[in-house]
């Protein structure tokens, strides 16, 4: 049973890799950015586990800024992806402008919350 799950997992990873290689470069860049943001968030959580959570507002603002940019980048990816039928009428400039605006608001609030 374990062998079949491990071989299943291997096949899974292999087919995922081949399928992913086919995505266009601009989407891959956005994906890389998302991964970078999540990794930064994880590093901050580990740091908080080591030194404690005081001051809590700084911890929250740090983690939420990472999670926020990751989520907004995923939204941008969804809107820019040519395969999404729902967003075929949306010009990519508008998607990018919305992304910039939301990030601006996000970081302004984070700067206020950092303390």
């Amino acid at each position: 049973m374990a062998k079949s799950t491990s071989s299943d997992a291997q096949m899974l990873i292999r087919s995922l890799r081949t399928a992913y290689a086919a995505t266009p470069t601009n989407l891959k860049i956005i994906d890389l950015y998302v991964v970078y943001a999540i990794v930064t968030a994880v590093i901050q959580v580990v740091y908080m586990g080591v030194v404690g959570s005081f001051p809590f507002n700084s911890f929250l603002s740090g983690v939420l800024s990472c999670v926020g940019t990751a989520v907004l980048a995923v939204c941008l990816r969804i809107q820019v992806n040519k395969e999404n039928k729902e967003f075929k009428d949306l010009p990519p400039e508008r998607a990018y402008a919305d992304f910039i605006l939301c990030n601006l608001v996000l970081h302004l609030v984070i700067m206020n919350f950092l303390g």
Partner: protein
Amino acid sequence: MGAKAENAVRPPSLAPSSSFPFPSLRTLKLKTKQQELLIRVSTLALIYVLAFAVRLFSVLRYESMIHEFDPYFNYRTTLFLTKNGFYEFWNWFDAESWYPLGRIIGGTLFPGLMVTAALIYRVFRFLTFAVHIREVCVLTAPFFASNTTLVAYFFGKEIWDAGAGLAAAALIAICPGYISRSVAGSYDNEGVAIFALLLTFYFFVKAVNTGSLAWGLASAFGYFYMVSAWGGYVFIINLVPLYVLVLLITGRYSMRLYVAYNCMYILGMLLAMQIRFVGFQHVQSGEHMAAMGVFFLMQVFYFVDWVKYTLNDPKLFHSFLRITLTCSISVGALALGVGTATGYISPWTGRFYSLLDPTYAKDHIPIIASVSEHQPTAWSSFIAVAVSATIKNLTTLIRTKSKASQTVSSKGTSSLKASAKASLDQALPFQRNAAIALLAGAFYLLSRYAIHCTWVTSEAYSSPSIVLAARGAHGGRVIFDDYREAYFWLRQNTPPDAKVMSWWDYGYQITAMGNRTVIVDNNTWNNTHIATVGRAMSSYEDEAYEIMQSLDVDYVLVVFGGVTGYSSDDINKFLWMVRIGGGVFPVIKEPDYLVNGEYRVDKGAAPKMLNCLMYKLCYYRFGELTTEYGKPTGYDRARGVEIGNKDIKLEYLEEAFTTSNWIVRIYKVKPPKNRW
């Protein structure tokens, strides 16, 4: 010949001999679309004015003043904000209430209402309209009610069409529940919060429909305004995730939902945490966990969806699904369990727990149960709501019928149009009659509803509570302005650092109008302090004197309705004082004040009742007074009995002031006697 023909051809409406002063619609030569726009805009304008006008009864009958209790706190803080600026307001520590503890006002209020009123005041001042901040405060709620009708129109238009939008706007303009909290003078959080609530929901629905990040950002700002305005924002942070969850379960989700909810949740949560009173509740309180749960669920859901789409192989996908589901469910359950067990995630507070179990407050938290606004609604009003909802549904149903026929006739070629029309006409011969009958019925019901709403607004919801009115012997109106009389006496005849002890209901009014320090007020944040006051009011005079000395009390204020028959006085509230005091100090026992479980103030009353401080202060010198023709002296008109203890002597207090109708009575606490 030609000229005559032209004369004959000219349409009658342009004839110069027309003596009709009002130009008919035909003279404007509008196309149907423009006519429709004109009708819509003028209806909306009328609804806007109606929403404002229906809330003005108390301003016309009495004067432009702030009503009730909580609005006085809001007024005082707004006054402070306009005088001292936002920085001082946000960091304000108030030493004039909850003596000797004080209150951190800056961190324990919802600033939305005060900031809104201060902004409107600034705008008026900038335009050189020299208004007083009180007028702005009194009329803020009706102004925002009008704005809510506009939002309701756009919301209805977004969900259905312009007709539904107009119906929604009209209904919300006169809805009694909304009017009761937003009447002119009721300067309370709900006045702007209902506007913010509807605005947030509208922006969110718009975001879900368009999938645009900009609308998501707008809904996050709407949510921020709601959080800054009212504690009821918890309603949004639970309803929106519930809506998303239902969409996910029923399979009606799309990429737009992901964009809308994530943008609103992350930005909204961050913005909400900027309000100090809310603090970190979005990540720590049990009431906010649903939103976080749905956020994580969404990430997992859409990730799984994306993997399914990329893999294109059902077998592999099933194994992936198995792994992911087991992992995520176990991690989620573990996190929730650990969080609740260690107490990190706080359980639901008493206010919201009462929604699940309405009897919870009565048994465990007497101070929540004693507030009259928390009593459950009567069945009659539930039925009224159900009837009005049915009316709304009927109207929409009728409109659907007409909308269907419109769609049929506009699409397709002329032959299709003709055949469709023919088939519609043939299908149900009495469809037209039935529609007319239904419309007439709906019109009758709606007009009755409108009359009811106006009547109930005028009779029940327009009372300022601080000024009482009654019908005199010959039908003329008698005004009792005792409260303000007493507060201004305090303001003008007591030293500025005097401390006033009263029941917590009057705290905000005393600080705002009397400008004196109070021991407890309506914020009710410290139950023990309130219980101390309750204990003092229910003890014998010497025990109460000790408590008053420990609190540095200079004056005691009680409200008494025995002369006027006013039933919301302190004697009627006294049992709550006993219960709250007894909840913290077991020396106060409720059965001591009752006789056979009955609450009495006449000769048969319990001896502790007849000699407690509250009784003495209310009925001092009342035994000599004749209140009603044909009744003995000392006849209490609110309880309908002759009082039991007519010969009251006060040892440690002396009477300072009694208002003209004996409604408010103020006593001075005598300093301790000299020791030899």
